[in-house]
């Protein structure tokens, strides 16, 4: 695809007028997806797709067209010519954009990670056979992902990675289950077997009758997967500079009124070394990292090229949504191996789910516990708990009620595949908090 894409785009640039600049961002993949239910194969197949987003700038007028590419010369010639025609037609009638950034990208990034994948059907056979007497449900995804940028100014970037992501759960009955993930560039059967063994051990605990919990305030341990869910919600406008300025960010009071989180909390967007491409959709090379919140205080937001132009800021290498892609939450001093002792008596929450803002201005969040959560007394697991709803402010559970963070962090490679497979990742610790508010 690489050679085809750059050659095809160069051909397109030959048709441009002197006043036109064309930037193109390519996003594609060749993926195998296998869905499991009850340790059997529900749906399995292959998807080959590539979308080119054409951004035509005619002076200070500009517009976008995203077009599916087929890799077939004749078909793509027709599609691209039609797309360019659409863009020119739009640019003729729209006004000039005061926020168009005409920064010229530079450098040429070329990253192709090696393909070390095991044949997917072999992995699928192994998953089915090793879990044949269990109730395993989930999805195994594997294959290559590519992102590229090409500009009529001559800049070319290419990023290609090949990986797998096995997102799965082991069920006991009803909603009693253990959730796991295993992602990487090469499948290690022993790692999978170890995870399976660990999950089976947790299922044993889930066999005990539930410990009933009433709504109220509890000391709780949020395992890294639960913290990661909180981060996923916070990424929804939380760190966007545009949203911070127009007060649609949950953290707008940190920027405008000086509210703070616990001094133990720092959030940093760390592009360098992450699983995401090192260039954004405007072709700009991303910085190594951007500090968003340091020791509990607001530092800055994520700034797209358009927001930078609007407010006179420096862009931070993010796309127009200004969402997090490679967030790191700092670690603390708690020993994860002895977290039950640290928790002492309270709720061990493995996962959270379906989070949403219940009061965005005050960063109050509601959501559910999901999968294996346990009641702990005197540092020992007593019993599983039923699913519970929480409704609490981030300014409290990551603020005055935060007791500590684990000294180790866990890496999560996003399993999101809406429209396309994500390259996002996050690195977060677990957290012990007091007075975590359960409501239902």
């Amino acid at each position, binding site marked *: 695809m690489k050679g085809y894409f750059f050659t095809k785009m160069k051909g397109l640039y030959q048709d441009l007028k002197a006043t036109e600049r064309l930037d193109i961002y390519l996003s594609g993949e060749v993926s195998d997806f296998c869905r499991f239910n009850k340790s059997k194969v529900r749906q399995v197949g*292959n998807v080959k797709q*590539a979308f080119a987003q054409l951004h035509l700038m005619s002076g200070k007028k500009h517009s976008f067209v995203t*077009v599916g590419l087929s890799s077939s010369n004749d078909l793509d010639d027709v599609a691209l010519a039609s797309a360019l025609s*659409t863009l020119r037609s739009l640019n003729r009638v729209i006004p000039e954009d005061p926020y168009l950034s005409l920064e010229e990208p530079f450098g040429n990034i070329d990253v192709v990670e090696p393909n070390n994948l095991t044949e997917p059907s072999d992995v699928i056979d192994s998953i089915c056979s090793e879990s044949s007497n269990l109730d395993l*449900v989930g999805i195994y995804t594997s294959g290559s992902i590519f992102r590229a940028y090409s500009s009529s100014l001559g800049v070319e970037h290419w990023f290609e990675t090949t990986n797998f992501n096995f997102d799965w759960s082991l069920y006991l009955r009803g909603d009693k289950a253990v959730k796991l993930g295993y992602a990487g560039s090469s499948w290690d059967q022993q790692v999978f077997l170890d995870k399976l063994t660990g999950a089976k051990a947790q299922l044993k605990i889930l066999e005990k009758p539930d410990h009933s919990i009433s709504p109220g305030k509890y000391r709780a341990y949020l395992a890294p997967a639960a913290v990661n869910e909180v981060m996923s919600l916070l990424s929804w406008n939380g760190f966007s500079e545009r949203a911070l300025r*127009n007060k649609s960010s949950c953290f707008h009071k940190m920027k405008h009124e000086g509210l703070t989180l616990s001094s133990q909390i720092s959030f940093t967007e760390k592009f360098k070394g992450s699983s995401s491409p090192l260039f954004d959709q405007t072709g700009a090379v991303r910085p190594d990292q951007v500090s968003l919140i340091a020791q509990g205080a607001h530092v800055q937001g994520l700034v797209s090229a358009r927001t930078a132009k609007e407010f006179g800021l420096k862009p931070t290498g993010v796309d127009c949504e200004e969402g997090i892609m490679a967030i790191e939450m700092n670690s603390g001093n708690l020993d994860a191996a002895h977290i039950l002792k640290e928790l002492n008596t309270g709720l061990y929450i493995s996962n959270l789910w379906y989070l949403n803002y219940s009061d965005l201005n005050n960063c109050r969040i509601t959501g559910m516990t999901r999968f294996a959560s346990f009641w702990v007394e005197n540092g020992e697991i007593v019993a599983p708990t039923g699913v519970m709803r929480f409704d609490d402010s981030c300014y409290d559970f990551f603020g005055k009620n935060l007791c500590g963070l684990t000294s180790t962090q866990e890496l999560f490679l996003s399993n999101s595949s809406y429209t396309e497979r994500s390259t996002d990742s996050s690195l977060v610790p677990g957290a012990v908090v007091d007075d975590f508010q359960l409501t239902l």
Partner: protein
Amino acid sequence: MYNENLFKQVSSTLAGVDYFSLRLCDEKSKKLSFRNGVLDPPSCSQDRGAMVVVHDRGGMGYAATSDLSDSGIQQAASNARTWAHRCAANAVTNFSQLEMPVQSGSYKSPVVKHSSSVTDADMLSYLSPLATHLSKGSDIVDSVIELWLVEYRQQLWTNSGSVVEQDFEFIFPSASVAASKNNDVQRRGIGIDLYGAQAGWERLDHCGFKEHVESLPEEAIELVLAPNCPSENMDILIAPDQMVLQIHESIGHPLELDRIIGDERNYAGTSFVNEEMFGSYQYGSELLNVVYDPTMSGELASFNFDDEGQLAEKQHIIKNGILQRPIGGVLSHARSSLDSQGVGVSRSCSWNRPPIDRMANLNVEPGQSQLEEMMQAIDRGLYLKTNNSWSIDDSRNKFQFGCEWGQLIENGKLTNVVKNPSYRGISANFWRNLKMVGDESTFKVMGTPYCGKGEPNQVIRVGHASPACVFEHIDVFGGRS
């Protein structure tokens, strides 16, 4: 002719397999939006691709490609067959023994004036003054107005003889404005779920979009000056634009058959409903009547056939409060213990995702009560409009929903506006507290283009229509003081 050629290529590649389907999708869209009175760069998309599904030797496999050349579609067909064979021994069912639908026909969205016939200049002339209106005022900190237009064409062929062609046209107008005062921010909007429809340009006039947009800044300012919603147990009157979300989350999803038989447990979740409940379970009060209705003109998920070719017909899902049947397609029904047939809801978001059970149009049928009558029946309660927060557990039972707009009802009359109104409950009890159902005059047809589900993930259009409804003894609360 070109499309028939694709079918011929697939047929020749897959000669002799038990079953195959070829689904070709073609989508064009345009999005025009203004933020704070300034036009964002317009964005369009043109996407075309195909999915081949094969059932053979007991297995099932699919392959999707944007390469619609002869060699590209042949390769996809071959890949689908290879996957079917490789995983046959581990398949959840013997796919070769399934009886797949055989139907032929077509469908077209009910459109008076195709949006494609309106020039870009005319579209901008329509939106620009509204964008300026929204952005005015010292207390307004953010405003957005957007128009999203979609044309979607899908063709389905199977080796068993189905030939289905369906053409859809959608329009999604939306707007939102945020006002800030006294360190608070409140947003009032026309969500994408309110006026989205299968329709053309005429929709904007029919739904009164312009007049509604013009009222938003004043409402946002009224809201930001309002007190917080009180915390207490009271009766609530829910407007149709919040009923949409209530139906979607606590009736639609728990009744999807693939959730009930476990396919979604790792992602979207399971259900508190099981297969034994159909035909006898009291889901709601006897006033509750819910239908799967793909025939509702202009609703987002109206069609004649699902993506496996099953005929789509209106069916009762809940009748007089009793659960009748699940929302599931042919495959899920065949894998379940139920005797009933599927209801034509096996759908995919596009060519690159396989069909799964989707709720499509799920509507609460009108009752007998007028709006005035419902208010008069409440001594102390809350009127709720326009969803802005939603969360529910993975069995679709414990929910908490928030709205933009709340207004107290005292002694049968609307009184003070309150901000941050929210309520929580448990699905299994909530619908049994349905006390009054609004009549035709309160009935609105809506839906959302953003229902997420499935592995790999899919986001799809679903329709919901509902009258206003009264529920008794509900826990309500407001924001942080």
